C-alpha cells in the first residue's frame, strides 16, 4: 500500500493554508517541480474551500488524505454534511482553475458527507 498522509482540521477558512502546506511539503519531498507544486496548492485550496463552504459550521471536521503513487498525487477530502444543506456546486471560476491545475477532480455528495477528489500527474526535478 502506498504511504498516506492525512490532515484533519475544523471547517473554517483559516485552516486551509495548513492543507496547502501539507500538500506542498509532501510534493516537495518527492521532488515534484515548482510549477506542479503551485498547481497542486491551488487545487487543494479550491477543493478544501468548497468543503468548508458546504459544512454546517466550524465544529465539522474536514479530513484531507494525500497519497503519492509513482508520479501521481491524489487527494481525497471530505466533510460531514447532508444534501439537505443544498447540494454543493463548484462555480465557473473555481472550475476553470481546477481544470487548469489538475488532471482530474470531482465533488460527490454522499448521504452524510461531501467528498472531493483530485489527481495530478507530476514531473520531478533531479
Amino acid at each position: 500500500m502506498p504511504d498516506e498522509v492525512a490532515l484533519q482540521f475544523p471547517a473554517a477558512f483559516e485552516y486551509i493554508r495548513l492543507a496547502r502546506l501539507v500538500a506542498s511539503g509532501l510534493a516537495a519531498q518527492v521532488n515534484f517541480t515548482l510549477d506542479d507544486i503551485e498547481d497542486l496548492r491551488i487545487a487543494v485550496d479550491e477543493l478544501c474551500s468548497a468543503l468548508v463552504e458546504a459544512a454546517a459550521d466550524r465544529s465539522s471536521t474536514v479530513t484531507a488524505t494525500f497519497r503519492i503513487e509513482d508520479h501521481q498525487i491524489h487527494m481525497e477530502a471530505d466533510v460531514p454534511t447532508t444534501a439537505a444543506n443544498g447540494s454543493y456546486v463548484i462555480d465557473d471560476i473555481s472550475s476553470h482553475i481546477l481544470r487548469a491545475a489538475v488532471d482530474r477532480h470531482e465533488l460527490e455528495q454522499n448521504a452524510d458527507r461531501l467528498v472531493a477528489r483530485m489527481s495530478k500527474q507530476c514531473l520531478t526535478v533531479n
Partner: protein
Amino acid sequence: MSIEDDGFVIRSLESEPGTIQVGGELDAHAANKLDDLVDQLLASGVTNLVMDIGGLTFIDSSGLRSLIRARKRLGDQPNAVVLRDPQAGTLRLLEITGLTEQFPVV
C-alpha cells in the same frame, strides 16, 4: 487600516485613498478581510480602487471573487478596480478564468 496575519497583509494607504496593498496569500480567509476593508473604503466615499498586489504570493477563486465583488459594488465601470504590479501567477489565473478584461493593469 491594516489587517495582518502570518499569511497575508491587507492595508489601505492613507497617502493614496482608494489604494489597497494586498500581500501574501489571498485565500478565502484573507478575502473575507479584504471584503470588509473594501466596504469601509466605499462607505468613506471612494469611487475607484487600486489593488497594489506586487506582494501577492498566492490567490485562489475566493480572492478573484473578492475583486469581482468590489467591482460590482462600484457599478462595474471599466476602471472600478485596477491592479498594480500583478505577478505572473496572478495574470495567468485571470487569463484562465476569463477575467483579464475586467481588471485593467496600471
